[in-house]
């Protein structure tokens, strides 16, 4: 019986955390957010140098849990870059680009079947289209891919409007191939992990602020009203971590309830993230409402994660169906 992180897993998370802390201090996030780019090569290379691109490669010896742990830290740091798309493109076999994708030379953006918006599309060398009803395609940037720049709300993973011709690229798996559902499920778990990292981050920021900030001659964290709000944030976030772990473990072990666990984790964590970021702004007061302080980057990521790959309500409906109710 083992249901907590190994020392090695914790060490990997710490390494990713350290790298991302160097890459994305708040000033860098501000600069990126106010720029035009949808991708940052330097931080991307740093992540890829840690081997994150290849975690889901068939021979990596790692699994979705390890990938989720990395995505969690990326969510915590509000890191730019299409990490989830990259990992899944590798998991899908890379369509002839496996090595270049695993080491990060080529960049893969994830396209949710039927969605118009794709994060980091302008930087992508290939597009991985994951569509439960149509299967999985890998499409090189260029012919058959039209990209329109839009002003994106999530400043750390800016979307573009993307139209891809139906016959573009290569079909890797058909709609009935088990890999299609499996990769679609993996995507849900990785978004849930991003949401977990972000929710934990804004909770930590709120707690740190409440310990520092003084009003009426004492730290505001001593006031029960705020203390209880912060306790509820933690109560919402920390137990939910185990949902992400379980969903990733079930996927790695090929358990029958893996698809349902993925749907539940995506729905639950994305709700948690939205609640946490709203509560964090409220807990901070005026400073939290400024652009400069930066809480809004996670707030915006929370809104993105919630809607991307299907809303919580959509996945709850799927989970209810999968339960056979």
């Amino acid at each position, binding site marked *: *019986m*083992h*249901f*907590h992180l190994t020392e090695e897993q914790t060490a990997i998370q710490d390494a990713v955390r350290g790298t991302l802390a160097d890459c994305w201090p708040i000033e860098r996030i501000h600069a990126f957010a106010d720029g035009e780019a949808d991708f940052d090569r330097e931080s991307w290379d740093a992540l890829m140098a840690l081997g994150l691109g290849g975690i889901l490669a068939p021979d990596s010896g790692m699994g979705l*849990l390890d990938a989720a742990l990395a995505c969690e830290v990326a969510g915590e740091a509000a890191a730019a870059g299409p990490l989830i798309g990259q990992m899944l493109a590798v998991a899908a076999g890379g369509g002839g680009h496996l090595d270049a994708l695993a080491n990060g030379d080529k960049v893969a953006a994830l396209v949710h079947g039927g969605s118009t918006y794709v994060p980091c599309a302008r930087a992508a060398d290939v597009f991985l289209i994951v569509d439960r009803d149509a299967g999985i395609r890998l499409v090189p940037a260029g012919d058959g891919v039209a990209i329109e720049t839009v002003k994106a709300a999530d400043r750390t993973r800016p979307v573009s409007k993307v139209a891809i011709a139906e016959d573009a690229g290569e079909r890797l798996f058909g709609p009935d191939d088990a890999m299609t559902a499996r990769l679609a499920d993996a995507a849900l778990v990785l978004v849930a992990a991003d949401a977990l990292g972000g929710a934990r981050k804004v909770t930590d920021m709120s*707690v740190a602020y*409440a*310990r520092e900030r003084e009003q009426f001659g*004492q*730290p505001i*964290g*001593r006031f*029960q009203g705020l*203390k*209880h709000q*912060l*306790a*509820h944030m*933690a*109560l919402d976030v*920390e*137990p*939910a*971590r*185990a*949902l992400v*772990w*379980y969903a*990733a*473990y079930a996927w*790695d*072990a090929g358990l029958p309830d893996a698809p349902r666990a993925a749907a*539940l984790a995506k*729905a*639950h964590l994305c*709700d948690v993230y939205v609640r946490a970021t709203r509560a964090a702004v409220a807990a901070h007061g005026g400073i939290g409402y400024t652009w400069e302080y930066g809480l809004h980057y996670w707030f915006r990521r929370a809104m993105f994660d919630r809607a991307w790959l299907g809303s919580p*309500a959509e996945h*709850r*409906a799927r*989970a*209810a169906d999968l*339960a056979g*109710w």
Partner: protein
Amino acid sequence: MDLSYGEAAEAFRAEVRAFLSSHWPPPSDLRGADLKAFVRAFRGLATERGYLYRAIQKRYGGSEQPVDVIRAQVIREEFSRVRAPMEVGGNGMNMTVPTLLEKGTDEQKELFIRKTLEGDYIWGQGYSEPGAGSDLASVRTKGELSADGSKWIINGQKIWTSQGMQATHMFMLVRTEPDAPKHDGITYLLIDLDQPGVTRRPIRQMTGEEGDHTFCEFFFDNAETPVSWQVGTRGQGWYVSRTTLKHERASIGGADGLGRQFAKLVELAKEVGRIDDPLVRDRLVQIEGFVLAHRYSSYRIFSCAAAGEDPGTVPLMMKLLLTEIGHEMALLAQELIGEHGFIEPAGAGGRGHRGPRGPEKWLDQIMGSLGNSIAGGASNIQRNIIGERGLGLPRDLAMSGER
């Protein structure tokens, strides 16, 4: 991650199963005192084999086994699978015995532990008073030494004693040093409840539950207990009462009850014809997200305990999480039962005599879930604990004397 227990545990499981298959269940015609005797003998055998009372020394009737949460879990699973009785429950095993093991005199251990394990002594908790709930250290029940210094004379009132009508003994906090600071004026006493100075009365609960199974209030009018039944130093009872059971405490069984209740909620939605309603399906899965977060967090805590690692802040959250989920389930149940909720369920609180019960039986859960926000550390106290011990927020000034 791996949710299997490993080969050694499975071999042990086979051993436990073999034991159970030859010693349980009792012959089907056994009744009354004969059945009781059978259960007692069964517990004795199971203890001899090292399955029960593992944290307790052999000289006091335990099996004195090395700490092994995986084995303990396998035992729980196998016993519960065939509905075999485990250790006697209640305050005695949960509170009195661990306290005595840590703070009791040899005489107290000899006098009380074996009798408690064997179910002869049933313990009531004498902590809460009408004026002392969350602020437990403000107890006013008074203890004074008799003129010859051999006995404590007790006067006052205790309340919310579970198993109060069955209890033979009580462990209690009484104020013995009225001039000392609040936390340093309390002594921890054990008392025999079978004496003229003790009166008990059941409390009728909001569920309607009453009679022998409900909580009691106790009145002490010059009740007596020997000084040798005082646990720990005079005036230090508050600190004695902080002793808790640490041994093999982690279990993943706690989450099973919640899972079963959720499954019943789904059954209710089917029974009242609402399972196809998209709003109901959405609410159910929303609640299930929390139910599973609770369950998998219990795996996490268990796994850390098995590996001897620190589980972090999650254990501080489990009680409040359980309580909050109970409220959510109550609200959905209320929606689902609709006008069935106009009917008072037979056997209020689920304990009394009852005939057939329809969806109105959920009133027991709907009201009972509120008890969870109060008993065993009120929800607002839980929030303080999470905030202060979990998140490191500064202590409430009013409570800064608590330890």
